[in-house]
């Protein structure tokens, strides 16, 4: 199995001294679908953002496809990032522009500034953007303003934008935390299907334990910045969650019981 993401003794210390990630060792293989769970503030988002350097690791090493993220030059970092798609809890779409323009954002690193500024995208890039929209099933919305879409549709545009990068890795930071339960399952199934169809290594932060159990294959548990669990999702039971969370499971940790 080929290693795609590797953390070696990686730590993140924020300015002001907060240690969000402590000496993490983690190896992720090509094509894996891996879920991170932990309390809010445990460092889940930091772990994810250390992969593409949006939050740079301050110690240790993080590699993506063999390339070192820690201390990478701006140019190298951009190259690494172009291989890593990311989707966000709040979708992070430009609401005032069309769905297609949002998806084309995934092609920015492939075209010169004047092309993206004037909207003169090469035909291949438009084609890739359209195919990405087809893959998440909302190509008919291509010319609609992003603000006119529902939350679930907006997140699928977010996924399409990441797919337009033709990435090796997909990072998903609480992708369903802003969605209702039904839409949450649709989006999670989309991610699972894309992982299966395209073999893109997928690394997801999830708050809800039942979603982690339903969709994950491998699970990583974070507690106060430390990696406290790493194993097959099939072996996970309530005791495991209690250990990761440091407390008993409450209804707030489960999606299905929430209205």
């Amino acid at each position, binding site marked *: 199995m080929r290693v795609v993401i590797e953390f070696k003794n990686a730590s993140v210390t924020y300015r002001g001294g907060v240690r969000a990630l402590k000496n993490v060792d983690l190896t992720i293989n090509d094509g894996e679908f891996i879920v991170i769970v932990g309390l809010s503030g445990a460092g889940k988002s930091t772990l994810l953002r250390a992969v*593409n350097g*949006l939050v740079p690791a301050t110690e240790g090493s993080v590699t993506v496809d063999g390339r070192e993220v820690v201390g990478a030059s701006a140019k190298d970092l*951009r*190259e*690494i*990032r*172009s*291989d*890593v*798609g*990311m989707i*966000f809890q*709040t*979708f*992070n*779409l*430009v*609401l*005032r*522009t069309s769905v297609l*323009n949002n998806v084309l*954002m*995934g*092609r*920015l*690193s492939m075209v010169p*500034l004047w092309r*993206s*500024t004037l909207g003169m995208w090469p035909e291949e890039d438009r084609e890739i953007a359209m195919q990405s929209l087809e893959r998440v099933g909302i190509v008919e919305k291509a010319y609609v303003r992003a603000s006119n879409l529902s939350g679930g549709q907006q997140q699928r545009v*977010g996924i399409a*934008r*990441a797919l337009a*990068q033709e990435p090796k890795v997909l*990072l998903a930071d609480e992708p369903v935390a802003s969605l209702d339960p039904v839409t949450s399952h649709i989006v999670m199934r989309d991610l699972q299907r894309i992982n299966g169809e395209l073999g893109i290594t997928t690394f997801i932060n999830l708050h809800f334990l039942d979603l982690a159990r339903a969709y994950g294959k491998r699970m990583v548990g974070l507690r106060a910045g430390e990696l406290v669990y790493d194993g097959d999702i099939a072996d996970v039971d309530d005791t495991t969650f209690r250990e990761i969370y440091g407390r008993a499971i409450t209804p707030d940790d489960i999606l299905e019981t929430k209205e």
Partner: protein
Amino acid sequence: MTAGARPAPPKKSVRPYLVAVAVTAFTIFAAKEVGLSLSQLTENFKTGRDFLARFFPPDWEWAKENVPGPMIETIQVAILAAIIGCSVALPIAFWASKLTANNKWVYYIDKWFLNVIRTIPDIFWAMLFVTGIGYGPFAGLLALIMFSLSIMGKLLSETIDSADPGPLEAAKSTGAGHTQAVQASILPQVMPNYVAYALYIFELDIRASTVLGIVGAGGIGRVLEAQRAFFRFDRIMAIVIVIFVFVFLIEQVSVFIRRRLV
């Protein structure tokens, strides 16, 4: 659910009353200092009435020959100044926002630059350029460019400050360079505001350009100043009416477009 105890209403603050007293006191004090008195107004009313009579009837015969050329020059200067000033202001505004500046040095230097040029009034810019490059509309144009730039820089950079940073993070995560990420994620967010500000600045430029001629920067203001020197108040009246009509019409159109934008 059991209801919790209702909270006590917050204590009434005396601050609004103190502010009201302070503002009143300052107004009385300042009025005394500048010699505002109603008796002076009524005493001078008769001479004022005679003075006003000299403005009528407006000298339209003269105006037909002498006003259109300089008025068109004034409008051209205002249009050019708004276009050039607002274009130059675009990158400068992006450097003046913490969200989109390339680094903190660019941000601090640019912020300082904008603060300096904003403290200089438009009429002073005109005097500066008239002294530097000589009389004429070109000095007026440069003055209004600085004026437009300073306003757009301030307004747009503050709009950028309040833009949603999420799409910028998303653009950066795709591996886009800084300028490209900003262009794709922040520019579309502030674009309607930018166009609205540009129209507003054009209105300000039209109004400002009518007076800049007084210090020698060309346009209708130059004609106005010349007639004032000859005490031809009937001609001044004609000019003022023309300026009023133009400014009024342009503002109506601009306000109409701006309402549609934001």
